[in-house]
Structures are given as structure tokens and as C-alpha cells.
């Protein structure tokens, strides 16, 4: 019988949102002399079901204070299926307002390039600057 498969398979080399956010979390630590860092926290199956976020993968992206007794600020929650993209984001409410998304709190990106543009926008927001600044000030 002839093969019904394609001639070749190409590995998906797109960087996942999780990888990009982990890298950005480390960048934040470098920029703040280790006082503040970003953490990607994987949600359990039960948590994903409770949140009705599909059947794929979901993560919180938290901004954390290294010297603040386990402090975590949940900036956004993201989810995607096995194909990595598109990625859906649920954002902090203050950030939604600042970025002009109104009450439409799900934002979707389709490629790593779109993701980078989106994250740059988020990380440069006044909201994020205020949170990071407050953690730095309380860490001293």
C-alpha cells in the first residue's frame, strides 16, 4: 500500500509563548538587579477546566518580588492548544483600560512576531512600570 503520509514532516520551530515569556521574565530580573522577575506558572488540568479555557495549555504570567515573601502579581493568563499558536490572553483589568481594549478582555495573537509586538506594548505600559516600581521600592 502506498504511504498516505506527506513526503516529509517539518518540525515546528516557532518559539512558544511560554519560552518567550520565560526569557522576558529573566530579562526583567536583569533589569532590576534581581529584585523583580517574571514567572510563568503552568495551570493544572483542573484549573484549566474550571476556567473553561479549552483543553490545551494555560499559564499565568506573574510579576514577582524576590525579597517580598512570595509576592506574586498576576499580569495575564494565556492559553493555546498543541499547535502553540494562536495564543489567547486574559489581561489585568487596569492594563485593558490603559491599552484601550475596553472590557473585551481576551486578546489573541497568531504568530511569534505578533506576540513580541503585543508583549512590548504590555511591558511598556504605565501599569507594568508602576507595579515593578512599587515592588522595587518595597524590596529595599
Amino acid at each position, binding site marked *: 500500500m502506498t504511504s498516505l503520509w506527506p513526503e516529509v514532516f517539518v518540525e515546528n520551530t516557532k518559539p512558544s509563548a511560554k519560552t518567550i515569556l520565560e526569557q522576558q521574565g529573566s530579562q526583567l530580573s536583569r533589569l532590576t538587579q534581581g529584585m523583580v522577575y517574571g514567572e510563568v506558572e503552568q495551570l493544572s488540568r483542573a484549573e484549566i477546566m*474550571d476556567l473553561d479555557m479549552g483543553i490545551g495549555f494555560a499559564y499565568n504570567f506573574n510579576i514577582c518580588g524576590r525579597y*517580598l515573601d512570595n509576592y506574586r502579581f*498576576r499580569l495575564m493568563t494565556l492559553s493555546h492548544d498543541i499547535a502553540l499558536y494562536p495564543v489567547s490572553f486574559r489581561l489585568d483589568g487596569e492594563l485593558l483600560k490603559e491599552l484601550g481594549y475596553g472590557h473585551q478582555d481576551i486578546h489573541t495573537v497568531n504568530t511569534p512576531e505578533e506576540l513580541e509586538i503585543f508583549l512590548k506594548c504590555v511591558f511598556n505600559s504605565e501599569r507594568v512600570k508602576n507595579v515593578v516600581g*512599587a515592588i522595587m521600592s518595597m524590596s529595599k
Partner: protein
Amino acid sequence: MNFVFWNAGNRSQQSALINLISATNANITVLAEYADDDAALLRGLYSTGIDYYALPTIGCPRIKIFSDTPPDHFSIIREADRYSIRKFSRSGLEPILLALVHLPSKLYMSETDQLQDIVFFRQDIEEAEQVTEISHTIVLGDFNMNPYEKGMVAATGMHSLPCLRTALSGGRMVQRREYSYFYNPTWNLFGDTEGIPGTYYHSNPGYDARFWNILDQVILRPSIAKRLDRQSLRIVTEARDTNFLDNKGHPGISDHLPLFFSLDLSIGGEK
């Protein structure tokens, strides 16, 4: 310890707050929609003999906390824009987690969206309980839903029950997953046999209108619920010379009325 929560309605409320805090001897005062100057309030309280502190916040400017206990006794564990979860520990008292919340109104969100927000909140409370190894959790605030609504009752939501005896069983399995209970004593404030029947009044022209709502609530883990003085839980309508009602008997100086309760946190103080 005495607790007060009030959604101050984004209006200047300094004299009302001073009266509220002094009349109730509140040790911890939590405010939503608070628009006044912290320093002016602290000065005003000090001039009446009350030494109070304003607690700093990082990511939750919607909730403001004042206390007669210095801020270093409250460490912030988890926050999002609509809630702040703090560990309160002080010598001679049981350490507790205080989860303080102001959820979005139905004016801006459907009940389904509200339920999603409350799932995030509940998950963060559970994470905080795990990290701190504290199960004495008190959740207080403006939930923008009534005690009987899905978000407050569903296992995936706050899972808060009106019956302490049932809540003391700890939790239940749903679809092979375990969900722990909160006890919601605020149910006891419904009805008009005593006091005022809600914290928020809304006259709705539609067929389905309840008029009085209890959007401001306290719920407690069963492990700490027995320490609540259930008789103390009340909706505050007046404090010294401040009347929180208008001439129709509805919330006046804010669209919400304050909530007060008292809890025995002393070590070994369980009833």
C-alpha cells in the same frame, strides 16, 4: 478583632470614615472605591485618639486597607487588579490570610465573565493557602454578586455555603475533583425582620427585581469560621452622627452600606 468593609462610592468620606472606624472600634478597615487622601484620614483619626496606618499596595489600587496594626504585620502574597491576598500575623493571634476583593459590576460584565474572574480569585486564594500553609482564610469585599449567585455558591467559584454545620465537613468531590468550602454568614442578613435587608439598593424597571442586594460579604474557611461572633455581623446604617441612609432609607452617602463583624483571633480562642 473588629473588621469593617465599605465601598465608599468614590466620594469624599473622611468624616463618615472617622465616625465609622471610631464607632465600631475597627482594627482593620478595608475600603473599595476610596477617593480620599490617606494622610488626611490618618490625621483625622489621630485627632480623635485613633492611631491608624495605611497599608501600601503594589498591584491592587482598587482596595485600600487601614489598620491599627503596623503594615509590617501584613505581607502581600498574591495580587491582581481586583484583589489583594495578605498574610496577617501578630504576636498572640492566629495567623490568617485576608483575601480582599472588589469584583466587576454586572454593568460591565455578564454573570459568566464574573464567574471566570471569581475562579481566578479562588485559585489564587488556594495557591496562597498552600504557599503560606495557612488555612484560616477570611475573604471580604464587594463581590458585586449576591450570596445566592453562581459565583458565590458554585464549587468552581467561591463555594460558600450559608450553613456552618455543612461547611465544617470541609469540602466535596465534584467530577472527581475536590473543592473546599467557605462559610458565608452574610446570608443571615437577608430579610427584613431586623435592620436593613441589604448593602446595596437597586430599583430595576424589569420583571425580575430584588431591590435590596447583599453585594458586600464576608466568607470564611470553616477552620476560622467558629471564631466569628455571628451576632456581631451587621450592616452599618449609622455611626456616631453619620447616617449612612438617605431620607428614603436607602444607602445615602455611598451607594453601598458598610459591613461590620468581629472575630476572636487569640491563640487558643476557638469556641
